[in-house]
């Protein structure tokens, strides 16, 4: 990727809260990152860590009782958080598009695939149905669907899960967006189909030079697929940086804990290293570092808000005591 190009997407200090009767839930707190063309950012976290809400906040899809309270989202230098709903509609599905997790609930069950393509194209530019069909056919071939003409006349229930997700991907790319937010698009799929989709996305991102945010809970997918990685915990990005560097030498204890929980490198049949406890309730987060109640390195200082420290080129971690290389060697 070109080094000194302007980032396509620039997020800074983004915070989203949900005002519920039982209290305020801070889903996303002070999230910042930038993304250049042709780059894939892996946004990783457990359920409830705020990774999906981050994606939705960028696309302006937060609805009441949720609200983006601060921060800015710059797309090609244009601020999105202050735009009117109409102006946002012109951008969503056009310059920013989203692929959701479950392709069954994303596609409209009573419209044919062809009609759904037409809807998306027609919403953003003048286009006849026959021309939309031609474009859709080309797009379906791109994502590896055989016999695209017949598929356009099908309803979603006539396609398999993998096929449906391919259709969603084709629809999300049809208006040539510059940013694609993929919210766990392969979680509901089998490993062979997941591998096919990852292969296809790698090719499409390269060919079309789109910037992509890949939201997932699966660190191992990120390892083989993304360029940058951001790990979220309790609404904050606790560690970010180039994928290989972060994974070979994690600085935040949470990242290290996540990596150790995945069976693979340790002796089969031995106990896995586990992170004790569960994620804190978002209604009552611990003060300071939210991870400190589960962290084995935590000390008294951790009750204060942890600083964001640089831990190598282009890498940051929100921690008072980031892990050193020596500690990581010992960890293994």
């Amino acid at each position, binding site marked *: 990727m070109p080094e000194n190009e302007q980032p396509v997407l620039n997020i800074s200090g983004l915070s989203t809260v949900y005002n519920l009767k039982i209290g305020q839930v801070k889903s996303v707190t002070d999230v910042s990152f930038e993304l250049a063309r042709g780059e894939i950012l892996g946004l990783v976290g*457990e*359920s409830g860590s705020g990774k999906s809400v981050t994606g939705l906040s960028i696309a302006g899809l937060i609805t009441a009782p949720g609200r983006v309270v601060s921060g800015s989202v710059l797309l090609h230098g244009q601020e999105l958080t202050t735009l009117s709903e109409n102006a946002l509609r012109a951008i969503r599905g056009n310059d920013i598009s989203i692929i959701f997790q479950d392709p069954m609930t994303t596609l409209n069950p009573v419209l044919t695939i062809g009609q759904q393509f037409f809807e998306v194209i027609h919403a953003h530019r003048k286009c006849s149905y026959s021309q939309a069909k031609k474009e859709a056919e080309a797009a379906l071939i791109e994502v590896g669907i055989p016999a695209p003409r017949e598929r356009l006349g099908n309803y979603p229930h006539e396609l*398999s*899960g*993998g*096929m449906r997700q391919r259709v969603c991907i084709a629809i999300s790319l049809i208006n040539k967006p510059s940013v694609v937010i993929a919210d766990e698009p392969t979680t509901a799929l*089998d*490993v*062979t*189909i*997941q*591998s*096919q989709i*990852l*292969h296809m996305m*790698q090719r499409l991102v390269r060919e079309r030079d789109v910037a992509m945010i890949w939201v997932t*809970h*699966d*660190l*191992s*997918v990120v*390892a*083989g*697929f993304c360029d940058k990685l951001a790990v979220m915990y309790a609404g904050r990005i606790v560690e970010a940086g180039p*994928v*290989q560097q972060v*994974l*070979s030498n994690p600085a935040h204890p949470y990242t290290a*804990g*996540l*990596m*150790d*929980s*995945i*069976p*693979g*490198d*340790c002796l*089969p*049949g031995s*106990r*896995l*290293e*586990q*992170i004790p406890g*569960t*994620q804190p309730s978002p209604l009552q987060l611990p003060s300071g570092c939210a991870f400190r109640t589960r962290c084995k390195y935590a000390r008294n200082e951790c009750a204060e808000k942890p600083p964001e420290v640089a831990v190598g080129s282009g890498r940051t971690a929100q921690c008072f005591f980031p892990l050193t290389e020596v500690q990581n060697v010992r960890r293994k």
Partner: protein
Amino acid sequence: MSDASEMTAELPVSPQDSPFVDVRHASRRFERRMSPVAAFLARLGLDYADEIVHAVDDVSLRIGKGSVLGLVGESGCGKSTLGRLIASLLPVSDGEVRIDGHRMASKAEPLSRRELLRTQMVFQNPMASLNPRQKIVDILTEGPIYHGLIKRRDKNEFAAALLLEVGLPPDILSRLPHQFSGGQRQRIGIARALSVSPDFLICDEPVAALDVSIQAQIINLLLDLKEKRALTILFISHDLGVVRHLCDQVAVMYLGRIVEMAPTEALFSNPVHPYTKALFEEIPRIRGGHREYRPIKGEIPSPLSPPPGCHFHPRCPRAIASCSLLAPPQSVVGDGHSVSCWLNAPADPTQRN
């Protein structure tokens, strides 16, 4: 099909000589009868017929006492159905399932309740498998009280001990399932399965719905319980990493048939069947860095109309002519390592047994 089943070799005996769980040529078919209109049209000579799904097709496997067998495969390959057959939640269409020598679900010699209780199941989704209106104490003690294993007045003590065993505080007895997180609920599901002191546990994707950090906790719990209670476990999963960690033996299933079965280390170091190889290729790995994905083509075919011969041949990179004609015979390629593939079939039919 008939020649194929004749050729199927007896499975290699696993290290233990008398297997605890012995599944012999089990099949399960689901039929959808024609509608009356379709039946009428079929009688007029039109192309209508009952739809039959071969969910499990002539599967044989053995699990030694105290060992863990992993059953892996894509969704729709029949691994959950096989689990339910072994748990006798579903009757077999053909073949038989024996647990510790007793034949399950046989009308001739019905099993006592006590025998049936020896097999218990842990389900995938702990939200859907726990009754939302039952208190934890009732979830855990309903089974043992009904079967007369404990007295009603002892139920609090009994449930508290179970909760401690699965790593939950015993003071949650009067709470309801929705008050717990996914991982805690799965612990309750495991405690419920253990409440009737089974010695065989069938776990149907018990960690698939959980986050990685919680997944590790549940895997550790299963490892501990296996040691402490000397459990035999059938572990159904699509996650090869988890299976490698937990299981002694692994069976790989594709569209109703077991294509390869071996001790875990043998299978992971030397996969033989092209499908197993492809599956291993595609496991995302943390180490190894950026990589190109080279996926196998196509999707798992509809079990309504499985391809003839070897079910995998339309997607197989090494398919040869015989693959599309006949189901491949089972051949032994190593100690306890068997595979169903024409590429490994002995050339001479007399050597096949």
